[in-house]
């Protein structure tokens, strides 16, 4: 589950149980804002807590259902099977096929997205959902014209605080939001999770290049931005100075762990098989920036050095940008095909079990603004070997060992060191057990709520110099995706 999904779920839970009735919730989709009634939200939370599915409460209704989950699983298995089949082809032909498929990846995603939308549309025709449709904010025309929408259709009013914990930069029309904010005078709190596509656009899909537009527009919209690590806050601050936008208040809200409790006996066969062997674990999407390649190369070095009885290296994560080529190499490489296990989809319970059973974890990401892998590792009491970049040192402090993500030799040496001296792993694990106290999502949600509530009580800020009328007592707060 993505970080913003955790933040939304945690905050929804907090707000439903502890926050006043005048907080309202909505979901953002390409066609607009849709209010989510409290009763629907309560049901979705209950479903999440009892079934432990990977969905977030704010995903589409059908995403909470097993069929959607199953379809996603099938899709990923098809990709993996295709990779295995093509792994037997000659190198040149294999690369041509990969290149052909890679160049058409956006089209593939569009087809899949289109099929999903058709399915949703069919269901809505058959059974219209019990929601209030709030029309979308108008997109800016090239000349920047926009009109004030009819009074009764605007979901946000003067004095309200619009809080969004979703993936704002990729999904929402910040330009329109800015314009409507100027007309209606509401305040805005947005979120910042991941600076990687901005700092390393060459390692991300081409559409990442347009993120600078969203970031700049978000900075113009927001009265405050919640950053989920000090690293992200620093990066965002530096970025906004470079872009020349206003710099709103930037707050750090440390995230909790993404792991759930793991009752024994509930996992797939593939996972069960891994749990019976010694292994080290890396949980992250399989994409170039996460640097699985360094671990793969380190392991090949260890094999070539003649090291015996190497534990499994388990990669858990969905296929991301550039990940398919690496997986193909791993599966085709005789040195690693039996040692490195790639699992694209696990349930939250299975993930928790994998963490519990690992010797230790690794996190060689080139840059991670959140440090989520380290947080999860420490929360499950596991030592982590992590890269020295991004938010890793901030989250891992002195419970984690840090390495240069580009230095394959260093990684090989340290892995070998820990494999040959398991007592050092034990000592590190003991230190974590003694000293580490995990941050909970509840505390994160409480901090966010406090910020939003304070803003709702404040007078209009200097951030928006356009004239406001007197602010209302009631704060209308939306937690949107």
């Amino acid at each position, binding site marked *: 589950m993505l970080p913003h999904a955790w933040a939304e779920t945690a905050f929804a839970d907090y707000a439903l149980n502890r926050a006043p009735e005048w907080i309202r919730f909505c979901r953002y989709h390409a066609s607009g804002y849709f209010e989510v009634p409290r009763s629907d939200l309560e049901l979705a939370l209950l479903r999440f807590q009892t079934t432990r599915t990977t969905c977030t409460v704010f995903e589409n209704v059908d995403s909470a259902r097993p069929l959607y989950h199953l379809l996603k699983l099938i899709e990923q298995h098809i990709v993996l099977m295709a990779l295995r089949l093509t792994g037997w082809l000659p190198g040149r032909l294999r690369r041509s096929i990969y290149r052909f498929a890679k160049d058409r990846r956006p089209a593939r995603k569009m087809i899949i997205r289109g099929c999903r939308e058709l399915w949703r549309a069919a269901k809505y025709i058959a059974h219209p959902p019990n929601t209030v449709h709030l029309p979308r904010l108008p997109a800016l025309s090239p*000349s920047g014209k926009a009109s004030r929408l009819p009074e009764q259709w605007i979901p946000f009013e003067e004095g309200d605080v619009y809080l969004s914990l979703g993936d704002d930069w990729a999904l929402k029309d910040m330009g329109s939001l800015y314009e409507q904010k100027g007309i209606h005078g509401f305040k805005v709190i947005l979120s910042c999770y991941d600076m990687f596509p901005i700092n390393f656009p060459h390692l991300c899909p081409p559409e990442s290049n347009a993120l600078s537009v969203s970031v700049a527009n978000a900075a113009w919209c927001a009265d405050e931005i919640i950053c989920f690590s000090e690293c992200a806050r620093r990066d965002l601050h530096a970025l906004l100075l470079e872009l020349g936008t206003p710099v709103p208040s930037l707050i750090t809200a440390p995230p909790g762990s993404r792991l759930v409790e793991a009752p024994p006996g509930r996992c797939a066969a593939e996972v069960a098989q891994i749990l019976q062997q010694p292994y080290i674990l890396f949980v992250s999407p399989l994409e170039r920036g996460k640097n699985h390649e360094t671990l793969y190369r380190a392991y090949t070095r260890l094999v070539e050095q003649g090291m015996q009885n190497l534990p499994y290296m388990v990669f858990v994560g969905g296929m991301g940008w550039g990940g398919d080529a690496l997986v193909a190499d791993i599966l085709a490489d005789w040195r690693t095909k039996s040692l490195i296990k790639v699992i694209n989809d696990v349930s939250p319970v299975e993930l928790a079990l994998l963490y519990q059973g690992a010797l230790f974890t690794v996190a060689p990401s080139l840059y991670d603004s959140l440090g989520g892998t380290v947080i999860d590792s420490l929360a499950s009491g596991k030592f982590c070997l992590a890269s020295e970049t991004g938010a890793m040192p901030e989250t891992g402090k002195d419970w984690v060992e840090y390495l240069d993500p580009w230095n394959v030799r260093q990684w090989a040496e340290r892995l070998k060191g820990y494999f040959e001296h398991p007592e050092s792993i034990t000592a590190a694990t003991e230190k974590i057990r003694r000293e580490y106290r995990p941050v909970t999502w509840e505390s994160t949600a409480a901090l966010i709520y406090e910020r939003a509530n304070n803003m709702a009580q404040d007078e209009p800020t200097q951030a928006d*110099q356009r004239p406001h009328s007197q602010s209302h007592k009631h704060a209308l707060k939306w937690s949107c995706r």
Partner: protein
Amino acid sequence: MKPTVLLLSTYPLCEPKNGGQLRLFNIGNAFAKAGWRVESMAIYTPEAYGFDRIGWRDIAFPAASPYRKFHGRTVPLINDLLAGKYATQDPRGFQKVLKKLPRQIDAIHVEQPWLWPLACRIKQIPRYMHTCLIYGSANVEAPLKQAILATYNVAHSDEIVAEIDALEQQAAREADMAVAVTQADLEVLEKWGARRLLLAPNGISPWCASPARLLRWRAELPKSPWIFYVASGHPPNFTEFTQCVGESLGCIPPDSKLVIAGGVSKPLQDSLAATRWGALNLSRLQLLYALPDEDLAAVKTLAHAFLLPIPYGGGSNIKTAEALYSGAYVIGSESAFRGFEGLMHLPEVRVAHSASQCQLMIREVLACPPARSWENELGRHLRKRLQWDVCLAPLPAAVTAFQRNSV
């Protein structure tokens, strides 16, 4: 009988668009207003001005001419210098000049140093030996050309710059009168040995937009306050833009734009798109390209602020004069206000000393209510002095006085 002044330049004057054309065109108007007969002759490059209207005395610098090479080498961006050599040293070129010279010439005004050798050669003709030679220095050309050639990594630029420097100094020394656009340039000419000096700054022609054009452009342009940049395709207008404003246009709000007009539109768009923040920059641009005068007048009237990202160079800029005359906010580098130092203190003027400061000023200005400096008596008075007829009136008077004294 009216005295005759011949204006020599490397650009035609029938349809003045760029700063150099506008200045020389208005110099001609000043002479005409003072009772002179004005003739102009341009040695022009057809590829740059081929689609413009050409005067009958104007002479094309052929693309196939051997004088298109500098000491046997093809060098870009110096056709102005080479046009002077063609007109003076090529027998066929000079013959064309001779055929088109007016019967009577009392003064030759050479705008920029390129055609100075031609003016001197004309004066050697017996019927023109009493002609007064005026050197109009619109700029100190050598350092400007050096910067342009360096931007494009042109080889052997030192040799070219040295030749231009020598030409400028020769013109200043030999001229009967040298005209500068700024006090700083005046001091340079004096140092080079100019005998008679005159300061004639750049100015503007007041514009008036029709209600119909204003209505049309109000609908086309952003509803929120926006900032305007108009310039020609002269390389420093876009190559050094990011040096003045920074690589990102994030300082412009999502509902606003940097509106760009003139020949700088396309090259600046390309330049901003190539930066790290290309997608953001493109989202903040609205390109108008070349506009007819009536449309340009409307756009200038509607602009909330003007941007003057001028990093270096001698002389002064007509776009600065226009921006100051408009009464809107003006944000520019220190170099942009060269020659207009007396107006830098106006409340709507912002001088940026760095890119980050420029971005901050753009943000602030776009959040301010419209500037109303025309409502102020002092503002009106200062702006009236920006008009061409006020700036250039001393020139024909000085030339007439010189001629009277030299008889």
